[in-house]
């Protein structure tokens, strides 16, 4: 596939004649767009939109985090102390929805916006105005979702998986608003994904072949296809809910000839690939950081690409492992057990590749590396519990207990979120021109690692001992585990304030970073100055003459 020449930047800048970095430096001065708030509302610049996404995601991370802390505070000891069960259920539901759709996904899209054009040598995203629209849909969607907390009957209270008929016949009146907000968020994701695919396929620098792309770009390409494939399924299933609630259909109402289990099939056909949407870009980030700080090329680049593709394809074949106890025929249980176990293979390959990349490297431990190493260890622990959950007979005991909660939090918090944090620390010098404060960064890292493990490791035990998930009160034998989890949760939550401190400090100043901020960093983004000027690569870098980086 011969890369096409990237188009000229469409809007105010047609002055890319005097190519070179000296020119780019000046861009700040003749920025011609509107100023003030309008600048941010109307921006079509991938860097500004990337920043908007990241800031949005961080604020959602804190809002979702507060909901989690309400949950953990109530679970600190047995009995009902702080909140009533109705509100507790709203908190678990909103925590899940906000973290999945509001924090993790937009964070990855934000990183994609910032970094993909820089990593493929493109001047901007392929569809800059669409980019602006996809972002501004999000505050609308989540403003709407959060407003349900103040509606009569309260916010959605049926879990982030919103199983029918609890969410349809038995849901609060705000369910219709929840559906609308999810529709909007879904449109935003689809448009974002189209933009990313268009950018990667059409705007790579001349000479950059697919197999020359950094893994972050590869994993995002595959993730974007997953998004386009499954977000419409989510839109379909919530539309069916909408019809059941407001227009008298009974897709999921057994009383009218519908099937509540159909809901779960549709939801998880979306939901399982969605899980990988939240982890594949994390693989890409870690695959950039580990070689940088080991000063050694990534081991098995091609097999990383293959493994990502395998995981993506297999993700469509495993959805029933979320519903092993719903009452399915033996053949179905076996089929989905086998496919689920197969996923362990490409996932294992990735871990082995990262570890082998470290082997005989020349390793330093800056903050991004610390978070990446913690990612490898704790994501692997989450992978192990995932493998245990794949064994159907054992899953009958694990299903819907805290063991599952421990599992998916291990892959999502020290998995996806640690990778996002690692990526932020890694690319901050490129964004701000300053290194993040290493001392604060280390504090942030160690407190986060301790907090995360205190929170989620005991959940394995409470789950095995028999504690169901999504309960506001529990039997006395689970008390100790829950107390530790709650303390850990507050520690983890509080230590994220350090992250904000690091970010503010880094934007304001700090040690100046050169273009190539990290000694071992090789990708294209490190060839533009730090901070990256508003417009980069207006003349595409020529990759044909460069020695192939990876092979």
């Amino acid at each position, binding site marked *: 596939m011969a890369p096409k020449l990237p188009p000229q930047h469409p809007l105010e800048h047609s002055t890319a004649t005097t190519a070179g970095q000296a020119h780019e430096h000046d861009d700040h001065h003749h920025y011609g767009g509107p100023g003030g708030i309008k600048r941010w509302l109307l921006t079509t610049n991938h860097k500004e939109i990337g920043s908007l996404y990241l800031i949005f995601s961080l604020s959602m991370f804190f809002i979702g985090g507060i909901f989690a802390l309400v949950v953990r505070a109530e679970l600190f000891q047995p009995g009902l102390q702080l909140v009533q069960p109705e509100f507790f259920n709203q908190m678990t539901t909103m925590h899940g929805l906000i973290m999945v759709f509001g924090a993790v996904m937009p964070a990855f899209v934000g990183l994609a916006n910032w970094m993909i054009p820089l990593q493929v040598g493109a001047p901007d995203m392929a569809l800059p105005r669409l980019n602006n629209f996809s972002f501004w849909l999000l505050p609308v969607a989540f403003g709407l979702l959060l407003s349900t907390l103040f509606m009569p009957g309260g916010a959605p209270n049926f879990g982030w998986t919103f199983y029918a008929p609890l969410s349809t016949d038995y849901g609060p009146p705000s369910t219709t608003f929840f559906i609308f907000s999810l529709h909007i968020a879904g449109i935003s994701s689809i448009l974002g994904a189209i933009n990313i695919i268009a950018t990667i396929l059409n705007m790579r620098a001349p000479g950059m072949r697919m197999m020359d792309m950094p893994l972050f770009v590869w994993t995002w390409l595959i993730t974007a296809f997953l998004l386009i494939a499954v977000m419409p399924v989510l839109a379909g299933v919530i539309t069916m809910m909408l019809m059941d609630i407001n227009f008298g259909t009974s897709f999921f109402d057994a009383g009218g000839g519908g099937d509540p289990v159909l809901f779960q099939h549709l939801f998880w056909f979306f939901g399982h690939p969605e899980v990988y949407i939240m982890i594949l870009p994390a693989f890409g980030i870690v695959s950039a950081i580990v070689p940088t700080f080991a000063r050694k090329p990534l081991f098995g680049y091609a*097999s990383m690409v293959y493994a990502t593709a395998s995981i993506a394809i297999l993700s469509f074949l495993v959805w029933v492992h979320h519903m092993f106890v719903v009452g399915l*025929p033996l053949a179905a249980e076996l089929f989905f057990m086998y496919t689920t176990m197969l996923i362990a293979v490409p996932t294992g390959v990735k871990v082995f590749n990262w570890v082998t990349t470290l082997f005989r490297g020349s390793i330093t431990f800056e903050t991004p590396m610390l978070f990446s190493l913690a990612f490898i260890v704790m994501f692997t622990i989450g992978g192990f519990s995932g493998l245990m959950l794949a064994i159907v007979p054992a899953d009958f005991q694990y299903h819907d207990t805290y063991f599952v909660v421990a599992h998916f939090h291990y892959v999502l918090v020290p998995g996806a979120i640690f990778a996002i944090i690692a990526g932020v620390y890694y690319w901050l010098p490129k964004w701000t021109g300053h290194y993040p404060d290493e001392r604060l960064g280390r504090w942030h890292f160690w407190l986060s690692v301790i907090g995360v493990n205190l929170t989620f490791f005991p959940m394995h035990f409470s789950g095995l001992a028999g504690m169901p998930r999504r309960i506001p009160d529990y039997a006395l034998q689970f008390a100790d585990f829950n107390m530790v989890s709650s303390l850990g949760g507050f520690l983890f939550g509080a230590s994220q304030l350090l992250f904000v401190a690091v970010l503010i400090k880094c934007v304001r100043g700090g040690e100046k970073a050169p273009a190539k901020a990290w000694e071992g960093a090789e990708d294209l983004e490190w060839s533009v100055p730090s901070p990256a000027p508003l417009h980069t690569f207006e003349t595409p870098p020529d990759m044909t003459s460069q020695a192939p980086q990876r*092979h």
Partner: protein
Amino acid sequence: MWNVVKSVLAAFFGVQKERRRQEDFTHGEPIKFIVVGILLAAVLVILIAMIALTAAG
């Protein structure tokens, strides 16, 4: 054609010699790989389904 199948199988397995990969990427037509890839994915699904059905009796 056999070479394409071999390459796709290698991709499924996740390991391939660098030399062969270079060859595929310089000479092969992408569409062939995509079609064979989809077909083999279907074969894999059918294979696992057969095993599951047999085991379920």
